[in-house]
């Protein structure tokens, strides 16, 4: 087995600097705030809050990643999320529509909004910056109009559970929540099992390019982190419902981007649209679909945010797009398209989230928080460009 293994650990890590660098940065930032906040950051209740606070950003970052990889941008997501929250409130609070009906309608409305914007971008070649800037204004306005400038609420309890609910302990222990621990262990085992299987298949083709030591350490660390965090969450109230939603989305979209021709074509489209078109790829339809998908995920994020606040407010979703876009770029996506990973965007969103949370605990004002976040975004992108130039 080691005959093929001519890649040293050092060169391998260097080659994957960006991937490991992102994760390492997240861990370092977490440890940094863990020390500064004297352990408050990793307290189960804070960790739970951190996940709840950032769930909608992470969900939108997944959609935004596809849009940015395709070579576009969507500035409207915050407004769309706010608008869908308002729509949900009007349907469920004012008209007493059941949740089972209102939620699908909201998701469809989000997809429709994304499709409407994607249509102009894809088929009329209008720059996405302009189209979605218009969308940002339009849906901010429509949110105000729909709510008549008032907050509308409270949402029915069942709807609030979307955001505030936890996966119950099926074993009846409650503290620690055994479901959470069990799911954590199962997920860790699943990840390790899949990694081993992939590696074995690659070996069968005589194609291992990851040193064995790196493989073992990497997977052990991931599994350990997963179980540890599950344990921490379990000592509070267990897995929040949104965590499950988020995990499912991350798995599904990672699969789509890495393992399907649909995903591959989106990267090709962003990498070189003309070459993709001349390779028989329907670039217009693909662009259209990424925007439709973005709209739907923005709607889902809007619902989760509204459920968390228990009411729909006219200011909901304000400036979300900036956090989402920043998360994707911190996560290593390229502004010119064609480069970026779902997991990168998620890690990027977590970095932003941990910094927000940590700085709030430390009592740093919103003014300096913005400054620091801005500098981190700039630093991440400079790091990227520097790496790229060095590679040439």
């Amino acid at each position, binding site marked *: 087995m080691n005959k093929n293994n001519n890649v040293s650990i050092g060169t391998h890590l260097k080659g994957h600097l960006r991937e490991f660098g992102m994760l390492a940065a997240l861990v370092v930032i977490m440890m940094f705030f863990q020390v500064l906040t004297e352990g408050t950051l990793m307290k189960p209740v804070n960790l739970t809050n951190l996940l709840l606070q950032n769930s909608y950003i992470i969900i939108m970052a997944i959609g935004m990643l596809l849009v940015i990889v395709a070579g576009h941008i969507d500035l409207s997501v915050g407004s769309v999320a706010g608008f869908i929250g308002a729509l949900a409130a009007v349907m469920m609070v004012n008209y007493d529509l059941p949740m089972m009906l209102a939620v699908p309608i909201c998701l469809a409305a989000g997809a429709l909004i994304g499709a409407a914007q994607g249509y102009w971008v894809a088929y009329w070649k209008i720059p996405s910056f302009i189209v979605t800037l218009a969308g940002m204004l339009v849906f901010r306005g429509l949110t105000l109009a729909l709510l008549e400038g008032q907050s509308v609420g409270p949402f029915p309890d069942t709807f609030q559970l979307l955001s505030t609910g936890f996966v119950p302990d099926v074993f009846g222990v409650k503290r620690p929540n055994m479901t959470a621990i069990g799911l954590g262990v199962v997920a860790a085992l699943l990840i390790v099992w899949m990694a081993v299987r992939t590696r074995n298949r*690659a070996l069968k*083709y005589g194609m291992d390019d990851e040193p064995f030591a790196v493989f073992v350490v990497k997977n052990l660390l991931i599994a350990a982190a997963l179980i540890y965090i599950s344990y921490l969450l379990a000592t509070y109230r267990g897995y929040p419902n949104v965590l499950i939603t988020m995990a499912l989305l991350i798995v599904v979209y990672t699969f789509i981007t890495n393992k*399907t021709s649909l995903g*591959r074509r989106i990267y*090709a489209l962003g990498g*070189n649209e003309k070459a*993709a*078109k*001349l390779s*028989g790829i329907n670039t217009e339809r693909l662009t259209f679909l990424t925007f439709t998908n973005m709209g739907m995920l923005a709607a889902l994020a809007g619902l989760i945010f509204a459920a968390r606040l228990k009411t729909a407010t006219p200011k909901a979703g304000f400036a979300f797009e900036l956090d989402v876009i920043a998360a994707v770029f911190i996560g290593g996506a390229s502004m010119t398209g064609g480069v970026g990973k779902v997991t990168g965007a998620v890690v990027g969103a977590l970095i932003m989230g941990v910094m927000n949370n940590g700085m709030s605990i430390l009592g740093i004002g919103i003014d300096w928080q913005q400054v620091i976040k801005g500098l981190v975004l700039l630093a991440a992108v400079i790091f990227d460009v520097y790496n790229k130039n060095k590679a040439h």
Partner: protein
Amino acid sequence: MQNLALEMRGITKTFPGVKALDQVNLSVRQGEIHAIVGENGAGKSTLMKVLSGVYPHGSYEGEICFENEVMAFSGIADSEEKGIIIIHQELALVPLLSIAENIFLGNEIVENGVINWPETYTRSTALLKKVGLREPASTHIGKLGVGKQQLVEIAKALSKKVKLLILDEPTAALQEDDSQKLLDLLLELKAEGITSILISHKLNEISRVADSITVIRDGTSVETMDCHAETISESRIVSGMVGRDMANRYPARDSRLGETLLEVSHWNVFHPERADRQMIRDLSLRVSAGEVVGIAGLMGSGRTELAMSIFGRSYGQKISGEVRLKGQLINTSTVKQAVESGLAYVTEDRKELGLILEENIIKNTTLVNLAGVTTNGVLDENEERRVSEEYKTSLKIRTPSVFQKVMNLSGGNQQKVVLSKWLFANPEVLILDEPTRGIDVGAKYEIYSIINQLADEGRGVLMISSEMPELLGMCDRIYIMNEGEFVGELASSEASQEKIMSMIVSA
């Protein structure tokens, strides 16, 4: 013998992997019109870029002497200051600015940082009168035709006190009467003592105005002819342009032609933006199994437009005509349809249109035929890698690993990746557009061998090339194209560069 205005001695310019210019000498006398002729890719434009400082001093070897002084230009601003002004084939005018603004762009008449508009317009009007353009100086450039824009470029050059004017194919896009006007203007400028260098393919124009002619071939200066000392016939120029040794540059192939594969008939295509401009005119062609068919023609003759319009209507509008494969009418209305019908098109511009430079060899190789590496809707990365390794071996792609990003490969290896991509789609007919452009000689030979192998496998190959020896060495049959039409068809046994060139220039 008059004084020399310009002397370039032993100019050698190398690009990674390609020697574009090799010991080129050029002597231009004071006050003459000096024509430079040569095939596409012979190195004419590169030479002019060296002269004008686009390639700065130090990036080439050799010496430039202008008005008896050795020059070391570090940029185009330096050469302009000395009075050397180049007008490129693609005009460098800003369409949304007025004629006057364009003439003085980068060279504005200012007083204390503020533009003096009355002076600008007065001087522009005077310059326009001189070049014979009757348009108000306030007209937007975008409203002028190409011919008039060309005159604005010359006016701009005159505003900079030009001593040596270089025109790169100035009449390529012009109608006959506009061309005549331009040439008359050149003669007038000559009478005023301005020296010009004229790069052109149109030999009749050259014989009309040129005082001397330098022939460039394969990056070397072949000869300089003095038009006043002797009468230069067009055939003399043509043989100077094309005459070269062709032995052993092309691998041999036994042609075994099979049934007719591709048939295109009565093909008409119009310009994508200007619906009244017909780019391809009632053109028909056919390619048999095992046959390599060439299309010869100069740049702008419509070869790429023809290929792209056939391949998924990727170029043009109001396309009409029929495409048949093995006698069956096929749908080529989208690239996807064309690929599924069995066509492949290897573009002339592999970086812009052929490859995703940021991605590795694997992802580029499987892009067209992702279905071929997908099982149950999931991409099989190991299979993808196996396929890429296979093409790496069979096409001799030189790379440390198939995980290499294609932007790090040399031109020849990039071209092989593009070929892998299309071969993996298993087409019946391949259209190769300038398959060896920018590739060094050794890699060219390998590409030729691949083309021969494709033909031996019974595929049809339609090959577009600006290099005539390449067509003669590779093809069974050659169509000669000019201005959107085939003006001739020659079997390789009866074809020669002289015949092809004269068919093009006399059309």
